[in-house]
């Protein structure tokens, strides 16, 4: 069975390290894009089952929101941003909570066939 390929779009090195560690599972293949241009190139050239993106990219993500399942992450959660993320079609809106298993749990909920 092929690994589920997941694209992380973020420019915060500590969060990227945490997310990669948290999602370090045989069934996931993690790819990181540090900006939206890099992300679009990855998305054009490869198949992804999930995008995990910083909320700073919400506007740019509108263009591709109907094609990918998305989890939006943020350092400063707000009701307005949460609403915008869900209206865009996001599956989850998560605070960047280092040390919690929220990210892995959310990925497992969104990709129910991927066992840990």
């Amino acid at each position: 069975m092929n690994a589920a390929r997941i694209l992380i779009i973020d420019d915060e090195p500590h969060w990227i390290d945490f997310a990669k560690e948290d999602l370090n599972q045989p069934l996931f293949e993690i790819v990181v894009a540090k900006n939206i241009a890099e992300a679009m190139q990855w998305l054009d050239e490869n198949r992804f089952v999930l995008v995990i993106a910083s909320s700073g990219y919400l506007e740019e993500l509108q263009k591709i929101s109907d094609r990918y399942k998305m989890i939006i992450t943020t350092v400063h959660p707000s009701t307005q941003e949460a609403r915008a993320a869900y209206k865009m079609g996001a599956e989850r809106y998560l605070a960047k909570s280092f040390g919690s298993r929220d990210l892995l749990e959310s990925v497992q909920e969104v990709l129910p066939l991927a066992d840990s």
Partner: protein
Amino acid sequence: MLDKGRITILVVDDLEDWRLTLRGILVDEGYSVKLAASKGEALEILSGAEIPLAILDMRLDESDEGNQDGLVLAKTIKREHAGTQVILLTGYGTPDVVSKAMSPGPEGQALIVDYLEKTETDKLLGVIEQTLVAMQ
């Protein structure tokens, strides 16, 4: 084009001032309106009429800070009145509340179709219209 006079909107809020304010806004726009002050009243109205849209406050007991009866009611509406869409209008929202209400469940549908804070009632009519048009 929406035939607003034929559309009944249910407003659920334990605060009478809010119920009357919202009724005024909606009636002025041409909608028919039913008011409920509690979950029980809301469910009674829903079982006796065809109501495409309900606007719920989250806290339906002002004396209880942790009250999230609006979310409980939204779950019941989703289960028992699938033809009714819900907008949550609250003064006590948090990002977690928005996530609980708007994240898609296992069947893909969220509990509510949209979320507004009570400081944003200027956006309410636009959100209602978008919701009703999308339902057509």
